[in-house]
């Protein structure tokens, strides 16, 4: 079946340094789109990035991700982490009319 793997449950980074959150996936159906959702404390999850095109970089709010179907990956990166980026990040894919989420990565940005 389809699944999304986020290998890190917690990532801690110092403000101003680069950060990378890993996301890999398995899919047996036609996958329509890939997403990163972000959930700030006590708020609802909201979409951060969306992509459906192989090898195309997608950017939003300083974050970027590139879908690589050859390696089944959709990692999220930012060149300079900010304190306000501290949140829970979910990678997700939509496939066969279902949406599959990873377990989430808690990002903590320290001063």
């Amino acid at each position, binding site marked *: 079946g389809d699944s999304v793997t986020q290998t890190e449950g917690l990532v801690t980074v110092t403000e101003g340094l680069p950060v990378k959150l890993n996301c890999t996936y398995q899919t047996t159906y036609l996958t329509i789109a890939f997403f990163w959702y972000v959930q700030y404390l006590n708020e609802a*999850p909201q979409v951060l990035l969306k992509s459906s095109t192989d090898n195309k970089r997608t950017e939003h709010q300083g974050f970027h991700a590139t879908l690589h179907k050859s390696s089944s990956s959709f990692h999220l990166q930012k060149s300079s982490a900010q304190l306000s980026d501290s949140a829970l990040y979910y990678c997700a894919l939509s496939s066969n009319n279902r949406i599959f*989420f990873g377990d989430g990565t808690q990002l903590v940005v320290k001063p």
Partner: protein
Amino acid sequence: GGIITQTPKFLIGQEGQKLTLKCQQNFNHDTMYWYRQDSGKGLRLIYYSITENDLQKGDLSEGYDASREKKSSFSLTVTSAQKNEMAVFLCASSGDRGAETLYFGSGTRLTVL
């Protein structure tokens, strides 16, 4: 823009009690979802509905019922609350099943005594 409203924000029940969570959206979206959020376990799909009066089971439907009597509303019933299902329940909607972005409500936190 639109909004998804979940009620109540906090729900406290007794073990074995039947409890209902409600969700309203004004996006005019066709598809609505109920997810359960447990710490460290991601978002797990309980039920979804692609149109009024449609119900589809997700991976975690056992112990839950759902109802979609109107396009704008989607309710979830915990048929017999258990202490191990204390979690945050998130409602979401999308314009096109799977292809479009999900819009989430702010959640209902369930506590079972």
